């Protein structure tokens, strides 16, 4: 089956990333496909590129895990409206708003809300991982 996933929780404030990543791994291992992982509300913080995971924490570097998922062909879409207002910007938005630095991690892209709906419309199942 085809799945659309949504992540609404920020790093460290929620288990959204861990749940979504393990679930995504199980989906791909089971032969299913992922239309898109869409990051919305505080979930956009998952795409921040400057995160430094604590060395002594059991949690691995979730940005790297997301990027590993992207390398397997899964699109990681950060909601552009939710993202830019929270400071998650790519080079285009950095230029547009004359900001100092882009902050979006490689492997993620800024997309409109329409990409969430398009993914859900194309998918057989939609699963949300809240904060």
């Amino acid at each position, binding site marked *: 089956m085809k*799945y659309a996933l949504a992540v609404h929780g920020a790093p460290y404030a929620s288990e959204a990333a861990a749940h979504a990543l393990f*679930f995504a*791994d*199980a*989906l791909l291992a089971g032969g299913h496909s992922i239309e898109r992982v869409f990051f919305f509300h505080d979930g956009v913080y998952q795409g921040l590129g400057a995160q430094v995971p604590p060395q002594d924490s059991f949690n691995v570097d979730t940005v790297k895990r997301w990027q590993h998922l992207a390398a397997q062909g899964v699109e990681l879409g950060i909601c552009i409206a939710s993202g830019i207002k929270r400071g998650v910007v790519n080079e285009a938005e950095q230029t547009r708003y004359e900001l100092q630095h882009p902050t979006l991690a490689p492997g993620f892209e800024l997309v409109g809300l329409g990409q969430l709906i398009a993914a859900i419309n194309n998918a057989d*199942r939609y699963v949300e991982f*809240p904060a």
Partner: protein
Amino acid sequence: MSLHLVFSPAGLEACSSRWQSGDKFVLLGNGVYAHKQALDVGIQPTDLHLLGPDAEARGISSEATGSPVSIDYPAFVELTLQCSPIVSWNE
């Protein structure tokens, strides 16, 4: 047949009056703390599942009779194949 993903005890409270007989449930994250309350609100043990790693991390055991079944991620995926819609509850 809906699948309710319950991420917290508050999520169970919100969900508990909005489900229908035959629906399935997965308690995950802090939702595993609500495994007894889930049975108290009338959810059948056979319809109730704990995400194993989350329960184990929190010291919640499902070994007692009538307690929900502990599942892994592949079984979680299997449940999502069987049910629609899939509804997340966190508050």
